[in-house]
């Protein structure tokens, strides 16, 4: 499974301070730690970044890739900042991933950028009119986004469909709807569509001590349904161990006594 390390986010105080003072070191250390823990892609979440967004994203992409030779997931709602990040991104380490588009016309510009820069893109299966009720609705939205992507010239293999994981503590029934959506998304195309989730949303709002447990049990179910990628915390060893064990049970990796160390 593709692991997208979530730790470089404007929500974290340490990251926000480093961003504001343009201090690359804390960001490089976080990127490096996630990379070494098994992340394949590093998420770079600058938030809306309305002020100096372009300059900020350029600086972040260059600072991180200077230290870690991995592709980045550019996570901002500001299209100008996103384009600046795509320009700065070193594709030698892999294609960048845009986070994200949706069925909201205001987000179609992200598809345009994905086509222009041959980037991969996360497509949230939500529209303008509120949250989807169930897996079927998510599939309907996914199909519309796929058609839109074709218009913009984004190949389907560059798209990761995201069912939008909701908090289990407030919308318990949505956990199952999202799982079902992961299974159904794959059937929308042959070869199957790729899928992604923002995993930690599931445990948002639950007591801190329970979050890791909730994340890893839910990840196990998602992996079983064929999930391609997850934005998650690779520094959570128990989470990583649960994922490796699920993949081993599914025959995706070969068992050896030391499989958790690989």
């Amino acid at each position, binding site marked *: 499974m593709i692991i997208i390390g979530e730790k470089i986010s404007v929500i974290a105080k340490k990251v926000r301070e480093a961003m504001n003072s343009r201090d690359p070191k804390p960001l490089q250390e976080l990127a490096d730690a996630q990379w070494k823990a098994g992340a394949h892609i590093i998420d770079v979440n600058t938030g809306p970044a309305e002020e100096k967004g372009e300059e900020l994203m350029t600086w972040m992409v260059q600072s991180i890739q200077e230290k870690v030779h991995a592709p980045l997931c550019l996570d901002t709602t500001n299209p100008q900042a996103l384009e600046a990040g795509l320009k700065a991104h070193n594709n030698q380490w892999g294609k960048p991933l845009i986070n994200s588009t949706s069925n909201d016309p205001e987000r179609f510009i992200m598809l345009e950028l994905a086509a222009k820069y041959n980037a991969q893109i996360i497509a949230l299966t939500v529209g303008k009119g509120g949250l989807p009720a169930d897996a079927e609705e998510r599939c309907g939205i996914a199909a519309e986004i796929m058609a839109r992507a074709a218009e913009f010239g984004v190949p389907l293999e560059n798209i990761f469909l995201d069912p939008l994981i909701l908090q289990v503590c407030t919308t318990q029934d949505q956990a199952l709807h999202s799982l079902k959506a992961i299974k159904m998304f794959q059937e929308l195309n042959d070869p199957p569509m790729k899928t992604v989730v923002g995993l930690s949303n599931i445990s948002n709002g639950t007591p801190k001590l329970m979050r890791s447990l909730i994340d890893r049990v839910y990840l196990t179910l998602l992996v079983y349904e064929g999930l391609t990628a997850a934005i998650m915390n690779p520094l959570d060893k128990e989470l990583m161990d649960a994922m490796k064990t699920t993949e081993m049970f599914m025959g995706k990796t*070969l*068992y*050896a006594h030391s499989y958790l160390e*690989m």
Partner: protein
Amino acid sequence: MSFVVPKESYNGKVLSVDFGKGDKAVVIGGENTLPFLSFEGEIPNRPVVAYEIQDCPPEDWPERVRNEYKDVSGDPVTWAKHCQDNLKAGAIALRLVSTHPDRENRSAEDAAKTIRNVLAAIDIPLIILGSNHIEKDASVLVAAAEAASGYNCIIGKAQEGNYKTIVAAALAHNHKLIAMSELDINLAKQLNILITQMGFDKEKLITDPMCSALGYGLEYTYSVMERIRLAGLFQNDATMQPPILGDVGMYVWKIKEVTAAEADVPEWGSLEERGVAWEAITATSMIVAGTNLLIMRHPKSIGIVEKTIAELT
């Protein structure tokens, strides 16, 4: 409508490993497709056959293969030169049988001396094998690695019970290493992990999943080799990407089909042909399963296998 050949695509690649020195050095592995499927990927190196010799006369070898070397096998240097000069061997595998406690129990120092003498006489690559005695091999192969320092040999076999000292010796003297496990793919992977965790480069490893002769468990060996390749190529499992060794000769040249006299089983036909065919068929099965390096005994069966490799390439 024209026919389009269906092609698989692979995520991983078999590591390439070189051994020996100068223009006689040999490279094995490096393919990114299943054996001989060159229309699907790159196969930069053919499987290689090494001639097996011993550090003492092969009294335990059946007559039909022992006779092939009767004038040279009294001395490992003469034997090695014969393989290189007369049989045009590309590589030699020297098995230090005499060091086994149940044989002559010769010392590690004796083994080191033999190796120095053989290396001085040949310029083709050398594989150095212990006597497959866990404790004794640990000391013999350490001395052997030192004696062969600078020759870029393959040494082996490191097993679960003795790998630490042998890995350290191969590391210190810059040799390639055979990691052997007993017909168990999970243990094969585990041993490779343990060895690389000691700081040994996976690009210097060769996996021996343990061989067996046709009729004596060949299908188990075949299946383990096949699964190693599938894990390395499809799952891109880096621990399962070293080249594979098939130590064929020693498993074939002891079974009743290659030893039973013609007078006892006339319906089995010529003893000579039987032995050659048995070794050639076993070895051919191995290369089809993914073996990159074979160790064999009879010049005729080696000839057949090399011809088959040339025809399949």
